[in-house]
């Protein structure tokens, strides 16, 4: 882990691959948070239907 990181250089943007990887993971988690159903809602539906 102490080896120097690689960098993506595009125009004025200079970003390390580890930073880019981390930002990618954050975007994926954000997308999952939007798309995955709220936990417990399926159970709520069942309760609602029974009552």
């Amino acid at each position, binding site marked *: 882990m102490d080896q*120097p*990181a690689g960098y993506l250089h595009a125009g*004025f943007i200079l970003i*390390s691959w*580890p930073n880019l990887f981390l*930002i990618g993971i*954050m975007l994926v988690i954000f997308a999952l948070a939007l798309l995955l159903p709220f936990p417990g809602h399926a159970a709520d539906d069942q309760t609602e239907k029974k009552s």
Partner: protein
Amino acid sequence: MMAQRSAGQGDQRGIRTVPYDLVRELAIAAAVSLVLILALAVAFSSPDVPSVTIQSWSKSDPVDFVTTANDELAGASATANYGPPYNNGSNAVQSIGPVSPQAWGGVHATVDQPHDFVINPLKQAAGNDSKLGDDVNVYESASAGQRAKWHDAYADALQKATVDGSQLTVATGDYGPVPEMLNRLLQLAQTGALDGLLISSNHFYQTDYTKPLLFMNDGGYLAGLAGDQHLTGSQWGMMNETGLYPGQTWLWLYTLWYQLPPFNTAWASVTDLLVVLMMVVLTLLLALVPFVPGLRDIPRWIPVYRLIWRRYYREA
């Protein structure tokens, strides 16, 4: 908090609501984060690049060290002309019209670089070295003009200096006592004694690294290391970390301005102040989003909330 009614959607004052246990969500998120942090720490540890010290600098690049010390004595270093909070210089003072927070703060952490970095440490070392004491006396009793001639000549000679092990070889010339003084300072630095002398204070804990950092920053060695690791301001350095570790990605907006013209061209002399003001304005805009026409309409234009509450909108 769980609403005080049965689970499932409800109706309160004509508005449909959904119960949600926020405390449970926070507890689960905290537990998952803790497990992840511990697992990643065990797997990858943390950045552990050795500290850069006066000792490591003087051993790795003795010519740069002695050249910088010569500049400190001559008053030609960046620190010598920096300005508040260290001295009354003006080179680093940033002002936009009447706005000059650095000057408002005044000189409150005085650094007298010839004495703090060079002469005082040498005087302390001269306790057991009468020759060194004599050299310092000769230097201090010389006129300012004479000292400037010695420093200029020695600075020129240092450009062609050679290094043999830890010894510096410079062409002979009229440098007064400067070479003897700076060679002794180099010895002090290479043994690590100068690191200790520069952080000595009257406090119980010696944690004030202002002087060694300013001294190192005046040379080229520290800047070279920072550049190699992409840590300088023009390299988005605020965001970066040493090694293969991800850095402070959340600082992207702060460092972005340093990469863009005119911040890094026509306005380069006041970039720090401009970036601070820019971030103040943007933070105010963020805080005042509900009152800013256009900004407050973005959720209506990009209705992400309809995706989050899609079941509600499907049924509504």
